[in-house]
């Protein structure tokens, strides 16, 4: 049993870190490299990506979302993959999404995936008056996921 007797010279051993290299990740210059990929983990649940051609617009991701963050919105620029496919596509409101990944698990055609991107911040312009500011903030965080971050897949359904 290690003894924990009061010893006033014990804390001095902490001073050896004066000459050791700190283990800080200096974020803007360096990035986390603990995994075989640089940056966040290979399975990270970040912002969504959606393969608009594979997606059949069934809406099960919208129904399963615990934060009610997904709306199915009509999108013209999409040709349906087969005759069942509707032309509605999921639109995710990042003011609601809790990044739990249940929509990725329940997507029947595995088109909705999560990427390893996570940086997004929004500064409401000075010109917008206070009354309209809450609406502009909510609009800015509602997107339709598409293939922009597809090259950086994170939490995908195997």
């Amino acid at each position, binding site marked *: 049993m290690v003894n924990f007797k009061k010893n006033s010279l014990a*804390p001095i051993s*902490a*001073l050896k*870190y004066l000459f050791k290299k700190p*283990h*800080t990740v200096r974020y803007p210059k360096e990035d986390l490299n603990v995994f075989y990929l640089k940056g966040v983990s290979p399975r990270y649940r970040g912002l969504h990506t959606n393969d608009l051609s594979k997606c059949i617009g069934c809406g099960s991701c919208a129904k399963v979302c615990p934060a009610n963050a997904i709306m199915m919105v009509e999108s013209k620029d999409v040709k349906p993959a087969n005759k069942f496919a509707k032309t509605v596509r999921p639109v995710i409101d990042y003011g609601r999404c809790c990044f739990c990944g249940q929509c990725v698990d329940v997507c029947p055609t595995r088109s909705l995936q999560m990427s390893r991107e996570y940086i997004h911040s929004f500064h409401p312009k000075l010109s917008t008056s206070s009354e309209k500011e809450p609406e502009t903030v909510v609009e800015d965080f509602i997107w339709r996921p598409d293939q922009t971050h597809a090259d950086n897949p994170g939490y995908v359904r195997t």
Partner: protein
Amino acid sequence: MMFFLKLIQSIGVGALSISVGLLFMGIGRKITARIHRRYGPPAIQNFIDVFKLFSKNSISHGFAYDLGIIAGTSALLAAVVFLPVGQINLFPANSSLIMILYLMTMAYLGMAMGVSSSGNPNATIGISRALTMMMGYKVPFAAVIFSVYIFARTGSLTNIIAAQSGGLLNWNMIRLPFGFIAAEIALQGMLGEKPFDMAIAPAEIASGPMVEMSGKYLGFGMLQHAVGIFLETGIMVNLFMGGAPNVWIFVIKQFELFFIALLVNAILPRFRVEEGVSFMWKIPLLLGVIQALIVVL
């Protein structure tokens, strides 16, 4: 004519003490950060902080509040003028040490008057702790000064420095070893470093006396702390390390003492108030009295 020359020189010494104090605090944050295994802020961070604080607008709590905080900083600046810094020795009067000690306690009392009129209970608890802690470390420090006076048989700092000239061997640090250790622990209390910083305890009383200081008042508080560092380490250098031929060696010697205080600061938690005072009156007071007896006999 001599008056204007003295005025400009004393403003120079005041500015030197503020910038050296702030530089020490900046380097100190970097060193404690290294012990925490991280990179600290840039060394000039405290200059940026002070400039930012003076650019904010601040909330006053009445005339006594403003007077108290300004009194604190100006008393310390007045004390710095009497300190012989390297070869600059503005007022070589023979009782400059007593003057400095009196002005230092004046600074704390001014701060106490201002802060306790801010009405925040945290501030009153904090300042009552600061004053009891000051009583704690002043007693051994007085014993040490008494022994130095008897040893050098003179009251003025310039003669004490002269008595120590000539080589490391006849520094007071070597000739009065117990006095130096007692003064070193008292210095830890004066600087308000970790084992004795229960006055500014953020976790218990939300940073004690500085709880209502915003903007410019906090800027003055930071200046006061910077000048305090310069002054207290300066007294120790003059008393025990034989002054310095020029200013740069003086600053380097000051940094040695401040470095020791930093290391102790990083690895110890803080005492309770009466534990701190009882610690101060046990070992350092004993060493001071032994030193005084050795010198007297």
